[in-house]
């Protein structure tokens, strides 16, 4: 989004002030931040549930099959229908008791709670976003810094690697890496992480090229500091905001790719990722169970939209040239 007529005062006081201004500066941004916070909370809760069940070494509650509760539509208040089969857990209630928010988003074809699975999906989505970023951002930043600062042969080599990876259509490369590494989330992490650093590398390189000519670098050189000290102690803090912007814009893309891969059956195995839920819900749609698909769609749209809008604002605040 272009920035014409920025509303409010221009933030002063460095990167974090600009970030704070971008996140809290307008109502829309605050809503986006709130949505993201909500999803983060859901993902943390999902992680806790996941760890709890793994520690107890039992089938997680979101995987437990209740054949008598198949295809429950979403509802706020419902009469529970516990039977002998579903009474295995703590659920020792008599027939027909009204329960608030019992399976609020309905159940799927095996009677599994859609809301719980959705929360697990959020956990996996955030896991993918964070892990791919922790792979891609250090690689991209480090290579970009080295290429920009040293130039010459180093630059040629790194840019050759960069243009090579960039020349392979992204999704195909991710698919190929995921196929080679094997089905599962590891393949997804590696596939996305090892292919998406190229954009950041280019941006960082361009910025370092500019920073290299600045006075403070010359001053550091005059003081006799070594190249790596100048690069990583002095220049890096001045280009670090690019990593933040890239992270906020890559995050939704990584989530989308994970959904895609899991949908194809290459990503998450045996865990309710959003992609797995989507491919499951697609088949149930034909039987009239619309709620699972709707819930997953809304979740994806909300989180991606929030990240997109916030990422745009961050980019406008920190670096209008990045596209």
């Amino acid at each position, binding site marked *: 989004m272009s920035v014409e007529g920025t509303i409010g005062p221009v933030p002063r006081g460095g990167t974090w002030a600009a970030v704070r201004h971008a996140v809290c500066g307008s109502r829309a941004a605050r809503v986006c931040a709130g949505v993201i916070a909500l999803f983060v909370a859901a993902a943390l809760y999902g992680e806790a549930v996941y760890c709890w069940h793994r520690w107890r070494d039992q089938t997680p509650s979101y995987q437990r099959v209740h054949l008598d509760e198949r295809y429950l539509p979403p509802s706020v208040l419902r009469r529970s229908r516990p039977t002998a089969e579903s009474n295995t857990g703590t659920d020792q209630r008599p027939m027909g008791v009204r329960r608030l928010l019992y399976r609020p988003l309905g159940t799927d074809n095996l009677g599994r709670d859609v809301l719980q699975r959705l929360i697990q999906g959020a956990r996996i989505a955030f896991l993918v976003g964070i892990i791919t970023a922790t792979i891609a951002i250090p690689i991209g930043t480090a290579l970009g810094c080295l290429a920009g600062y040293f130039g010459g042969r180093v630059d040629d080599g790194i840019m050759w690697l960069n243009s090579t990876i960039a020349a392979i259509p992204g999704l195909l490369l991710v*698919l190929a890496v995921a196929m*080679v590494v094997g089905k599962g989330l590891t393949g997804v992490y590696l596939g996305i992480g090892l292919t998406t650093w190229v954009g950041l590398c280019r941006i960082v390189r361009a910025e370092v090229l500019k920073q290299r000519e600045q006075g403070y670098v010359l001053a550091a050189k005059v003081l006799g500091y070594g190249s790596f000290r100048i690069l990583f102690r002095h220049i890096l803090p001045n280009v670090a905001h690019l990593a933040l912007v890239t992270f906020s814009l890559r995050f939704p893309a990584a989530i989308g790719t994970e959904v*895609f891969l899991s949908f194809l059956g290459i990503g998450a195995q045996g865990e309710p990722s959003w992609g797995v839920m989507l491919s499951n819900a697609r088949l149930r749609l034909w039987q009239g169970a619309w709620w699972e698909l709707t819930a997953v769609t809304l979740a994806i749209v909300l989180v*991606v939209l929030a990240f997109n809008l916030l990422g745009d604002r961050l980019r406008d605040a920190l670096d209008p040239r990045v596209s």
Partner: protein
Amino acid sequence: MRYVLRRLMQSVPTVFGVLLVTFVLFHVVSGSPAVLVLGQNAAPLSLEEFDEQKGFNKPLLAGRWVRTRAFADADFHKRVDSLDEIEGVEHVRSGAGAGWLKIRQGGVLPVPLAFPLRSHTAYRWEMAGRLAEGGEAVWITRFAGGREKTNTLAAASSRGRIRVDVPACDAAITEARLVVLRGEMDLRHLRLRRAVPRWWDSQLVFYFRQLARLDLGVSAATNQPVARMLAEGLGPSLALTVPIFLVGLAAAVSLALLCAYTHGGWPDRLILGVAVTLMSVNYLVWIVVGQFVFAYKLGWFPVWGFESWRHLALPVLIGVISGLGADTRFYRAIMLEEIGRDYVRTAKAKGVKPFGMLFRHVLRNAMIPISTHVAMTIPFLYTGSLLLESFFGIPGLGGVGINAINSADVDVVRGVVLVGSVLYILAGIISDVVYMWLDPRVRLR
């Protein structure tokens, strides 16, 4: 023209890099493609034949000796159950999980081969172990036809490596055994290596020579040449992606123009909001919901197949909508940038009508960045419809690619990746040339 040639020359390292990446991906990292395709429980002979056909049994970069699937490397650190029954052979444990095989005097260690080794090829057995002082052991190789050859084991070197070379012979080797005639022998591991006639004849060379013949390999699933599969898939793919591309371009540019025309007004903000929302809806959702609602519930379009234009209408519509958000936003930003320039202000001051200004001045100048962007999207015509095709049953490249990935068809995936990359590199050159052609001020060197 000279510029184009130079750009082509410059892209050679990139193409080479792409080849290397695919090589590393499919030859170095991937483990055994034969196991990937044929499964864990495939017979060793069929694995060996697969490797032979695809060149996977050559050394990776260069080398004289390679493994063979006839005898998997045996490591006697751990106890091997099948050897317990044999007289004179026992497993000696030393510490946790470590140990070796001890063969007593008169003991015979049979070495079964999964299939007869080929004739006219030299083989080498590599052992790590020790023959007791004054001991004597022989390696007996049995050939097809019952002939046998006996090698006396040379005294072990200081590192305990013992080699038995079996020179090329006109009969196939069917069996081998180790006989200890005197003393005792310790054995830590046993490996079989096949001699390669030419040391430089590696997988990398095989791969490059195959590509130099424009041979992309043979699909393991359908047994068709990959090049032909890709060529056959190209037509249906283009029938789908070209309309998506054209309609999408027209729609996005006109929406962006409308945005620029009413900049700041409600249509602009509405379109922008819708565009951002459209961007955030996952591609998959469009397909699933579109297919369900329009094809199944409402019955406006056929659900599946590739027969007439009606079958294509819905996928095209979905493709356009899913790409519309991002494109509109991008083109709008370009146009707004143009509108902010001095020549637009001059035109306004001269009294040019806003509408004429938009078309004659802004659009024409915005065409330059737009067209370079368009040229860069050409490769996505090739890969962009992976899902649309497999969902709507269109026999295009996307469907081919998805099927290949699902069935781990290495050659097809590699072919799709390679062709996509080459297209991308070409598109980069085209985009630069178009840029130069449209904007005479730009002189590319």
